[in-house]
């Protein structure tokens, strides 16, 4: 039987689905809450997708599997910077946006068909800060300060 590793995080953000969607897909917002990183994609089903550090080095890449603005985004994600993550192959990232009273319920799922995945262990330590900073940016206009002062080599 195939093993699986999964990180799931739910947060509620006082914003609109459209504003949250833009914050998730537009670099002018992404760089503010995601440690200066950028993403490159046409954001259409079948488009390629890349995540880059502030110097323009590609850390992750994949393809847009589902694009349903402002409700759901699914993409494949292969890490290419650290060898032990790269060896695990493609993972899958899902953003789900659901309106509730006065807030958007945002569910992020990052999963891979690998048992005890090092990639999922790694991103499990990173997502909470990124998503806390995203919520602060949308609710207060200010992203959170970064924990790391420099991108690792």
């Amino acid at each position: 039987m195939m093993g699986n590793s999964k990180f799931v995080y739910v947060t509620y953000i006082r914003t609109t689905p459209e504003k949250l969607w833009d914050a998730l897909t537009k670099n002018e917002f992404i760089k503010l809450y995601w440690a200066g990183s950028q993403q490159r994609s046409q954001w259409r089903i079948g488009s390629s997708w890349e995540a880059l550090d502030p110097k323009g080095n590609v850390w992750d890449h994949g393809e847009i599997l589902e694009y349903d603005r402002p409700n759901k985004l699914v993409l494949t994600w292969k890490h290419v910077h650290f060898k032990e993550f790269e060896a695990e192959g493609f993972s899958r990232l899902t953003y789900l946006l659901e309106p509730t009273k006065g807030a958007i319920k945002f569910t992020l799922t990052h999963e891979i068909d690998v048992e005890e995945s090092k990639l999922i262990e790694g991103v499990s330590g990173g997502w909470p800060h990124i998503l806390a900073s995203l919520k602060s940016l949308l609710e207060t206009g200010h992203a959170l300060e970064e924990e790391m002062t420099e991108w690792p080599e």
Partner: protein
Amino acid sequence: MSKSTFLYVTYIRTTADKLWDALTKTEFVKQYWFNMHQDSDWREGSSWEMKNSKGEVWDSGKILESHPPRKLVISWHHEHDEPARSEPNSRMTYLIETAGPLVKLTVSHESDVENSTLIGKVSGGWPMILSSLKSFLETGQPLPDPRKAA
């Protein structure tokens, strides 16, 4: 050994002391915990109760560790609905760590019961409560109860 665990990490722009007060003082808890509040003097060995606005007890337990403003561990028994009420005590831990101008809050809620109903239920509740807490501390406004119709 724990069989069911809920783990959640968030970062809040506040101080450890303000976060501790928000987690333990009834006047604050009532504002972001969707009409629930907690009664305790938060000293080790003291009892602890979670009540709704009518004073009905939903959960109860004891303070196992209390180190303001860094760490709180409580035993947690659900009192309101079966089958969670029949499960033995679960254990809930708040860990508060300063990260520069931010505070990192780690909430872990664990039970020795495999596929615990209680841990399943609180796994849906904690993200709402902790999102509301973060909004409350950063903006002064908690979130409305998301379980009510949009």
